[in-house]
């Protein structure tokens, strides 16, 4: 297995600061108990569990954080936020990462271009997310 390189320099610190600024949360409050992942209804769909995702933020791993699908799978149901023993608004962290992703890499989706069958199948939340992407 190759080694992932950890460097906590100014870029990494800037990413952490940005997430904290948008979310209003202290990512270092997280002590990695995993209760967020344990209670998340969509953990099985995520390539990084919620606590792994927060851990990546703690280490300032911006690229890997944005590459994960965790924040896009998150439906903001707030189960994690309500249950977190460290009073972290985990959903707000997810939102912050979505914001950063959208601001940097706006992926415009034209709802009108989507085929009718897809539109009928897609859950409402996905459509709402797509509208948000339009505002990115």
């Amino acid at each position, binding site marked *: 297995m190759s080694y*992932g390189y950890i460097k906590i320099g100014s870029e990494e610190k800037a990413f952490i600061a940005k997430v904290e600024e948008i979310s209003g949360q202290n990512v270092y409050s997280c002590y990695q108990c995993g209760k967020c992942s344990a209670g998340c209804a969509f953990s099985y769909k995520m390539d990084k569990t919620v606590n*792994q995702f927060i851990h990546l933020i703690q280490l300032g791993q911006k690229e890997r954080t944005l590459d994960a699908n965790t924040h896009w799978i998150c439906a903001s149901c707030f189960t994690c936020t309500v249950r977190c023993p460290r009073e972290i608004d985990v959903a707000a962290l997810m939102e912050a990462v979505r914001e950063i992703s959208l601001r940097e890499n706006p992926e415009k989706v034209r709802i009108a271009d989507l085929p009718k069958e897809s539109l009928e199948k897609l859950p409402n939340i996905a459509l709402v997310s797509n509208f948000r992407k339009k505002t990115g």
Partner: protein
Amino acid sequence: MKIGVYVCECGSNIASTVDVDKIVEEAKDLPNVAVSRVYKYMCSDPGQELIKNDIDEYNLDKIVVAACSPRMHEATFRSVLEDKGLNPYVLEIVNIREHVSWVNSDKDKGTEKSMALLTGAVYRSALMKPLERKKVGVIHTALVIGGGIAGIQAALDIASMGYKTTLVEKTSSIGGKMSQLDKTFPTLDCSQCILSPKMVEVNRHPNIKLLSLSEVVAVDGYVGNFKVKIKRNPRYVIEDKCTLCGDCLPVCPVIAHDEYNQGFSPRKAIYISYPQAIPASFIIDPDDCLGINPLICTKCKEVCGPEAIDFDMQPEIIEKEFGAIVVATGYAPYPIENIGEYGYGTIHDVISGLDYERIVSASGPTEGKILRPSDGKIPETVVFIHCAGSRDPSKHLPYCSKICCMYSTKHALQYKHVVHNGTAINFYIDIRTAGKDYEEFYQRAAEEDKVIYIRGKVSEVLEDGDQILIKGVDTLSGETVELHADMVVLATGITPSEGTKEMASLMNLAVDINGFIREAHPKLKPVDTAIAGIFIAGTATGPKDIPDTVSQASGAASKACGILSQDELEIEATVAIVDDSLCLEVVACVLKRAHIALLRCK
């Protein structure tokens, strides 16, 4: 003769693997047995009453109790006999719990063994004779061995209760490891600031006699009456005359490593280990000095105004008697150079926890600036590796050293307080913060001071240019990681000190598998040893933080005073006697400190 047999069920402890009803029935047929009974909890008040009533009703002469270890309830049942006017020593305890039910799951075999033991006990009981307890006088002085925080606290507590106390310290000053620490968790009190008032108090307490540079070389006798030989090594500076003026320092031509600063700074051959040292006197290191045999240099003696220097001082042996002894001989850091993959001793900027304490201390070699040893630069990234030696039964220490999670967290936090833009990373296996306000301290380090925690052990620490390459794992993400650091601090584990090992062997104190002195009972007699009158405190019994050490020291002091406060002590009547016609004088018994009667015999 009438013997009463009492079998205890101990709830289900005994009854589940021993057919108690069967052995009670069978016991009735044994010779001299007048009554045989079973009860759920023989040690309970109704259980004791049962025996008392039978003694009256059946005119019993002797009692046999089949229950737990005599270490638990022998005293309880002896007092039952005493209450009824019987001699307390005509009681026989059969241990069918620790020796049968707890170590066996086969009920038939357990019953058979219990019956065999019980039968033997009944026959033995018939031969038992009453014994009388002897009384001995008590010498009302205490000896405390070790002048660290445990010894200091124990000596102060005993002395404050009005008993003369001798405090023996091997090195030139009391204070121990705590004097080397910069700050203490979780309050960040300056260690020296909270320690030195106690050290000063030791020095001026009318009931405390402090013997520095001294070692206990022989201990004889028994509770209340220990005879101790103490070897006092020469200081070569007369304590009472030295005024700490320091005129000797500039003239001394010898430069040596300063042990107090972990070798990071120089000292002269004549020195004082640190300004607050007690006794407040310089000392000459005979290994470094050029004036002690042969006399080549007398520069310090020439400039010493108060004429405090005496090159001809000799070691002396002091013989004293004490009523009680407190052993507080402390710990030594694990020799982390044994962990080859962490590079201590080969990579300059890999340091131990205690090294770091000196570096971060305002009284240390860098005056509190955090500078790395190799080039004196401020490290931008510092990695703290937990469990350096601890929790590694295959090669190093099997146990958790208890204080490292907290002190590494404190180290990281102190680093961030000095180097605000720096990065502090802790590699840990588990974070153990079991102490008052400890968890809050850990959370504060992470939350407020942005100390980073990565769960996983570091496998290798390598030199890479002027940096250090760390190869580790992040077990929470399941990924191997590597990073560069400018300095690495190893959270060094705790081992029994040389003094702890020496004292344990000298006094025949039982030690555990790791060499720490064993308590008489790990939970209920934490400051007693197996030898009456000898108590233990602090890290001599195992890894411990300062609050636990201090409480234990006060506990040991209070137990010691329990002996010192008596005019005479009752000595157990069950002593061995020596059959001169059979004794081969191999003295194994004396070496094992079997009992006072043997010592007297010789």
